[in-house]
């Protein structure tokens, strides 16, 4: 089992290597359905061992399940909203489903047919994108959730044998939530155990604290069309600066998983006046969404928050974003 497994690849591997494949092949063979069909539909056409399963029908089912407007996406937003008590994740999914249509790809993008929306679905698609944005900020990117994710990652690296996930499906499946939580509690109580320094953060609720959160409006540059985007370089410098001053600090920004979440919104197709248009082309709301998720956070040990925050604010006030400096340079040159 390769160590670069992702979620989808792991699913395909589990289907194939456990009794799931046997059961599917036994019970559905008469209908011409095999485990490889299920892998194409449930994960990705690329993960099937049998290229003949990449049929248009299977690809379409895959879109219905995992696509930009897929049931998986609609489900997790609504379910997470209910279970977390976060109302912002709700949107009119019934209207969205009613508006779904088969839409031909735009010119220059291939000639495939894709699950998209007819004209009536434009507004509810925006609603879904906004719901996803709000859920991301309020829940998936919540400051405490994020830092505990980091602590968990650090614990797993220390606790797992050689810091790697198991190589067999059986051992991987044995790594349930319960197993890991038990290991954290156990390790948190035993100073000599692997991962103890990270586990005790959970046991003692002694996570790193948020010292400073930098929002896009305070750390942005503008492109030549006036669109704002994050000044990643400035934030990196800020992180290095406080790390040099205070040692055990940690920076956090929306990572690739966040961008992936919003990148797919740009691939939602809407049929407008008979033409296929991408949602981010026609919707100002969606267009501006991807950069708006940006929040830069600096975490530190409990008790140092005020000092670290002050150091951050001093640094930021003395190191403006490049755009502002460029404007100043242009102005001074013009005056010469």
């Amino acid at each position, binding site marked *: 089992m390769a160590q670069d497994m992702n979620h989808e690849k792991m699913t395909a591997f589990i289907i194939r290597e456990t009794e799931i494949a046997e059961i599917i092949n036994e019970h559905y063979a008469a209908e011409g359905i095999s485990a490889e069909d299920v892998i194409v539909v449930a994960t990705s056409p690329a993960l099937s061992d049998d290229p003949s399963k990449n049929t248009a029908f299977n690809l379409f089912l895959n879109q219905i399940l995992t696509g930009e407007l897929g049931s998986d996406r609609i489900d997790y937003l609504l379910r997470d909203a209910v279970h977390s008590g976060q109302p912002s994740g709700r949107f009119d999914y019934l209207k969205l489903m009613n508006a779904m249509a088969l839409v031909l790809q735009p010119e220059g993008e*291939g000639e495939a047919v894709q699950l998209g929306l007819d004209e009536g679905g434009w507004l509810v698609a925006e609603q879904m994108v906004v719901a996803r944005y709000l859920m991301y900020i309020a829940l998936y990117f919540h400051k405490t959730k994020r830092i505990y994710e980091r602590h968990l990652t650090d614990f797993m690296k220390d606790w797992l044998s050689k810091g790697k996930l198991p190589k067999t499906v059986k051992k991987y499946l044995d790594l349930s939530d319960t197993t890991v939580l038990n290991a954290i509690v156990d390790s948190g109580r035993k100073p000599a155990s692997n991962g103890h320094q990270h586990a005790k953060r959970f046991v003692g609720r002694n996570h790193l604290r948020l010292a400073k959160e930098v929002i896009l409006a305070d750390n942005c540059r503008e492109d030549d069309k006036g669109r704002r985007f994050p000044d990643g370089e400035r934030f990196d410098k800020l992180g290095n600066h406080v790390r040099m001053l205070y040692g055990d600090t940690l920076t956090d920004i929306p990572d690739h998983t966040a961008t992936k979440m*919003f990148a797919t919104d740009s691939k939602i197709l809407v049929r407008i006046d008979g033409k296929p248009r991408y949602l981010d082309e026609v919707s100002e709301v969606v267009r501006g969404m991807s950069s708006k998720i940006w929040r830069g956070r600096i975490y530190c040990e409990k008790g140092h928050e005020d000092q670290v925050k002050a150091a951050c604010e001093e640094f930021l006030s003395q190191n403006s974003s490049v755009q502002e400096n460029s404007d100043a340079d242009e102005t001074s040159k013009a005056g010469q």
Partner: protein
Amino acid sequence: MPTKPAKPVSDEAWVAATVVALRTPEIDSWTGRIHVHKVLFLVDVLGLAKPPFRFELHQYGPYSFDLDRDIAMMEAFGQLNVEYTKPGYGPRYQITKAGLSLDSELPQRDRDAISRVVDEVGNKDSKQLELLATCLWVTKRENVKDDDRAIDAVRRIKPRYSDEDIRKSLQQAKKMESKLKAA
């Protein structure tokens, strides 16, 4: 005296170099999503350089989800602009000032590799690129050398192309490979 380790090249530098090459005035390629994906795949599969993206077969032939993510990050960070120039057409990418600095991160030999592929395929449309890339997937990644078997294999993956189109594309792929590897 110990030498300084070379600065690691970001994945985004490959995207920037590809978009810059595709948008040079002499080529002025459409530079859509498919163009960027297929050029980098061709660079990889022909062994001209090693882009850091993992390609797999998807709806439009060889495709990389890592590359998709990096394109989205570049857009979010203002390094790439997306332009919708015609209703009913997909987006075109253009590098921004912030993105241009990434282009120079890539070693010249890798930028040359990208440019040579762009010179060959930059003016093809997405349908042609999709087929060309799929042909090379079959012959190079799946190691199907016999032409008739290769046509069968490509047809299974891309049933909407005729045998004649596939045969022509296979020949083009062979010529292109010989030319680029000889250079």
